[in-house]
């Protein structure tokens, strides 16, 4: 193969992601085809898009592969690391202010996902970049938490806070070019099937403190954090293979003791998440290595008919079209009332959302916004592949 062809081949995004994953696994041979400015740029873009550029730099240095990189790559990764380390200092200072503010007003919080794992499972926090902070709270503390965040200078993003279909409120604070985003969650997922799988109290029971973030700062323990990581990428992100999420899984899996693995498998079984968890571990093992113990322990469980029929398994491989997504959510919603609430929530969002999303003012503007939404929805329904197939019959 000519070098130019080889270059073109590795520049394809999926191949570049595979190359980044090889390096994360500790295979320096993956660096060999990385020649030329275009390939290097594509490599850096991919590592950044997957959120692993800083952790990759750290591992390359730790494993003695750093000197194999070109000066351009080294300089670019150094710049990213400096930038992320600064951002982390800013983020930490702001997150501590938020958590202290909520704690002082008796709002109990749990830091979910990367913002917590950065302080419990990564060698240094800046290695785990986060765009936002996800805080889990009890539903009955939503209003007091919201009021507290607003008192701290945050603004609620109404257009992203539709209560009938979302289980989170999003807040932002802008300071210069820095934007701090905090999501308040009162359930672990917007998707009805997953929403109640882990309650606040269940996660709080095994939570671990995060002293760097203040007196009241806590994040779910490793078992629940791993369970949540498995759910999150499947339920929220279409079975995404984003490397930083898989790296979270790898670090969490490596940290579990034998007893914790037993608890994890037991929870996956009880909550009918065996296929989702097993698949997440398998993808992580394939791309980043590790997870052998977990996969071994799941053993033949996945062949079990009960596991194959798990409702959560339907989300593996992505939910596909918006119609299938809605159908899955309707199936996951427990009871007729919940199903009806979901349908009306999609068809007729609350007025606050409509005002913001459609820039509608006054009663007439609001009515017009609902008409526009209904017309657009009807047109989409009529022109959707599902409808066209049905008409063709």
């Amino acid at each position, binding site marked *: 193969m000519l070098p130019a062809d080889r270059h073109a081949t590795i520049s394809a995004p999926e191949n570049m992601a595979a190359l980044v994953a090889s390096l994360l696994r500790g295979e320096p041979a993956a660096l060999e085809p990385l020649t030329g400015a275009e390939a290097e740029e594509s490599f850096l873009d991919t590592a950044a898009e997957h959120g692993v550029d800083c952790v990759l730099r750290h591992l390359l240095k730790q494993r003695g592969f750093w000197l194999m990189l070109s000066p351009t790559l080294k300089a670019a990764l150094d710049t990213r*690391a*400096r930038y992320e*380390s*600064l951002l*982390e*200092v*800013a983020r930490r*200072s702001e997150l501590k202010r938020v958590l202290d503010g909520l704690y002082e007003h008796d709002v109990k919080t749990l830091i979910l996902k990367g913002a917590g794992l950065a302080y419990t499972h990564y060698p240094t926090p*800046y290695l785990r970049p986060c765009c936002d902070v996800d805080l889990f709270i009890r539903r009955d503390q939503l209003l007091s938490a919201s009021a507290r965040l607003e008192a701290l200078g945050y603004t609620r993003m109404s257009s992203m806070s539709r209560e009938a279909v979302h289980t989170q409120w999003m807040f932002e604070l802008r*300071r*210069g*070019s*820095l934007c701090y985003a905090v999501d308040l969650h009162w359930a672990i997922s917007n998707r009805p099937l997953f929403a109640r799988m882990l309650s606040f109290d269940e996660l709080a029971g095994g939570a671990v403190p995060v002293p760097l973030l203040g007196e009241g700062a806590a994040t779910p323990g490793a078992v629940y954090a791993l369970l949540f990581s498995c759910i999150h990428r499947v339920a929220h992100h279409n079975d995404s293979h984003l490397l930083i999420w898989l790296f979270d899984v790898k670090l969490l899996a490596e940290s579990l003791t034998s007893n914790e693995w037993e608890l994890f498998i037991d929870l996956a079984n009880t909550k009918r998440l065996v296929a989702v968890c097993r698949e997440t571990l398998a993808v992580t093992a394939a791309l980043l290595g590790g997870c052998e113990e977990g996969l071994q322990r799941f053993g033949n469980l996945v062949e079990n008919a009960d596991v194959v029929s798990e409702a959560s398994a339907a989300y593996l491989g992505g939910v596909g079209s918006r119609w299938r997504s809605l159908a899955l959510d309707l199936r996951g919603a427990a009871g007729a009332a919940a199903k009806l609430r979901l349908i009306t929530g999609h068809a007729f969002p609350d007025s606050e959302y409509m005002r913001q999303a459609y820039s509608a003012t006054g009663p007439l503007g609001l009515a017009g916004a609902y008409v526009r939404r209904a017309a657009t929805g009807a047109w989409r329904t009529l022109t959707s592949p599902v409808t066209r197939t049905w008409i063709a019959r």
Partner: protein
Amino acid sequence: MSVAFEDRVQVPADVLLSELDGEAVLLNLKTETYFGLDEIGTRMWTLATTADSIQAAYETLKNEYEVDPNQLRDDLATLLDTLLEHGLLEVRR
């Protein structure tokens, strides 16, 4: 602005510091000025912001590094002037 060696300097409230591989990165959140310091620059910055005066920091540095005292004095003054100019340090009265 030129720094006086009898002055004391401090880190402004809006400045963040991050240390990475022995080097420091300073960020002024107000002006969004970003400044990297190498190992020696980081040591100068640390001493200058913790000593009773810049003169005291200079004396400590003179004992730590085998360097021409006049050269050290010039380098320290240049660094601190630059940081003051970009709002990454402020004189404490």
